C-alpha cells in the first residue's frame, strides 16, 4: 500500500468521510511514527482553519509540539512547516472575513461543544474538547514568568511572547476598571481574582 493512499485515507478519516476499509487501513498503520506525525500536522492545520484552541494536554497537541521542537534543523522540513503556516494564516484570514461578514454569533465558539459546532458550521468536526477557561485558570499566576499554557494556543515561533504579556494586559484591564469606576464591588472583585493567593 502506497504512502499516498494511506495519507488520503487518513485525510478521509479526519473528515469523517472514510469508509470501513479506509478506517481499518489507518488504524492498522496508526503505530507508525510517520503516520502519526502526518496526523498531527493535519490536526494542527485543521485547528488553525477551524479556529479551535489546541488543548495542550491532548496527546495530539503534545505530539505536534514535540515534532516542531525536533525538526528545527532539516531545511526541507523548515520549508514544509513554513508553507503550512502560510496556509494556516491564509485560512485564518479567510475564515475571519467570512465570520465578520456573516455575523459573529457563529464565531463565538469559545464554549460551544463539538456537536454544536458541527451543527452550526455544517462541517464535519473532529470531537476535540474545547478549551474555554479552566486550563488557563489552573496555571494562572500573577507572576509574569509563570504564564498560562493555553495562551500559546497555536503559537510556534515565539511561545513566550504572549505568556509574557497577556497576564499583565489582563491585570491592567481589570485594574483600570476597578480603580476608575465607582460602580460597586464587581470590577474590584474581578481585579482581586487575578491576584495570586
Amino acid at each position, binding site marked *: 500500500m502506497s504512502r499516498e493512499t494511506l495519507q488520503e485515507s487518513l485525510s478521509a478519516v479526519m473528515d469523517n468521510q472514510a469508509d470501513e476499509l479506509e478506517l481499518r487501513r489507518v488504524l492498522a498503520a496508526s503505530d507508525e511514527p510517520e503516520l502519526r506525525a502526518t496526523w498531527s500536522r493535519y490536526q494542527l492545520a485543521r485547528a488553525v482553519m477551524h479556529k479551535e484552541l489546541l488543548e495542550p494536554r491532548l496527546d495530539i497537541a503534545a505530539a505536534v509540539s514535540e515534532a516542531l521542537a525536533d525538526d528545527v534543523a532539516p531545511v526541507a522540513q523548515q520549508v514544509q512547516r513554513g508553507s503550512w503556516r502560510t496556509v494556516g494564516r491564509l485560512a485564518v484570514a479567510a475564515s475571519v472575513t467570512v465570520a465578520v461578514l456573516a455575523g459573529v454569533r457563529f464565531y463565538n465558539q469559545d464554549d460551544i461543544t463539538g456537536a454544536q459546532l458541527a451543527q452550526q458550521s455544517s462541517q464535519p468536526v473532529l470531537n476535540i474538547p474545547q*478549551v474555554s477557561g479552566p486550563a488557563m485558570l489552573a496555571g494562572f499566576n500573577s507572576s509574569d514568568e509563570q504564564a498560562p499554557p493555553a495562551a500559546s494556543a497555536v503559537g510556534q515561533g515565539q511561545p513566550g511572547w504572549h505568556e509574557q*504579556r*497577556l497576564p499583565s494586559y489582563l*491585570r491592567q484591564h481589570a485594574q483600570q476598571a*476597578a480603580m476608575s469606576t465607582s460602580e460597586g464591588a464587581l470590577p474590584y*472583585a474581578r481585579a*482581586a481574582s487575578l491576584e495570586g493567593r
Partner: protein
Amino acid sequence: MRFIPFGVLLLGSWLALPAAADEGSVMLQRLADAERTLSFQGTFVYERNGSFSTHSIWHQAGEGVALRERLLQLDGSAQEVVRVDGQVQCASGALADQLIDSQLWPARALNAEQLSEWYELRVLGKSRVAGRATDVLALVPRDQHRYGIELHLDQQTGLPLKSLLVNDKGQLLERLQFTQLETDAPVPSNLEPSAGCRPVRLGPVQAQAAEAWRSDWLPPGFSLSSVTQRRSPASDELVACQVYGDGLARFSVFMEPLRGEAVEDVRTQLGPTVAVSRRLKTRDGDVMVTVVGEIPLGTAERVALSMRSLGEVAQ
C-alpha cells in the same frame, strides 16, 4: 446558516416582553441611587471559572457624609481598596501595580435610559439572597456584542445582592453574591485603610501615541472612555491602551510593536474575560493588537481586526 434564524428567534422572544421595561429601569435607577445614598456593610463571594474568593465591603453614604467605601479580600492575600467620593485613595500593591503612568478618566454613572438601548430590562420574579427578599432583574443584550446580566436586587434597599454574568448560551461566566448584609452605618475604624494599602498616584497624561489609533468598527453603544500608554511588561516598547465601554461592559485594546518578531495570533478566555491577539500590518512594521474585556469572543475578534493607525488612514 442556521444561526440566523436562531438569532431572529431570540430577538423575537425579547421583543415579546416589553411591558416589564419601565419597571426594570425604575429598579436600575433605584440601584444607582442606593449605592449613592445608603450605608451598608456585608460579605460577598466572587466566583468565576477557576477562582473563588470571599470579600468584605463597608460602604458609608448619606447626606452630609463623604461617600466612603472599603473593600477587603478575606481569603488568601489581603487585597484591599479604599475609595472616597468615587476616587481610589489607596489599594494593596498587587491591585494597582499595572496602573503606573495610567490616567484614570471619570466613570460614566449607571444610566438606566442609556442602558435600555443596548439591554432589554426584564423583571424575572422574586428570589432570596443573604436571607433577604430580592427582585430578579435581567439585562438581556439586544445584540450579540455583550453578555447578559442577572441582578438580584434587595427589595428593602435596592442594592444588588447577587450579580450573574451569562453568555448567549445561558452559561454562567461569573457570580458575585452577598452572603450577609447589614444596612447599618459601618464603624469608622472599618473604613480606615490597613497598613498594606498604598496610596494610588496617577501619572501625567501621555495620550499622543494612543490617539494615533482608532477603531474602524465598534460594537454599538461602546465609546472610548480612556487612553493610556505604558512600557511593555516584557520589553522597552511603549504599549498604547484604549478602554471602551457601553456603561456596563468594558474592553481594553493594547497595541504593541512587534519589531519583526514572528508571533502567532492567540485567543483565550479567562472566566468572563476574553483575550484576542491579532497581528496588524502598519507602515511602521507589524503591531500586535490585543483586545481584553468582558465581551464575547467574536466581538473582540472583530474589534481587533478593526484597529487602524491614523498614519495608515491618512495615506
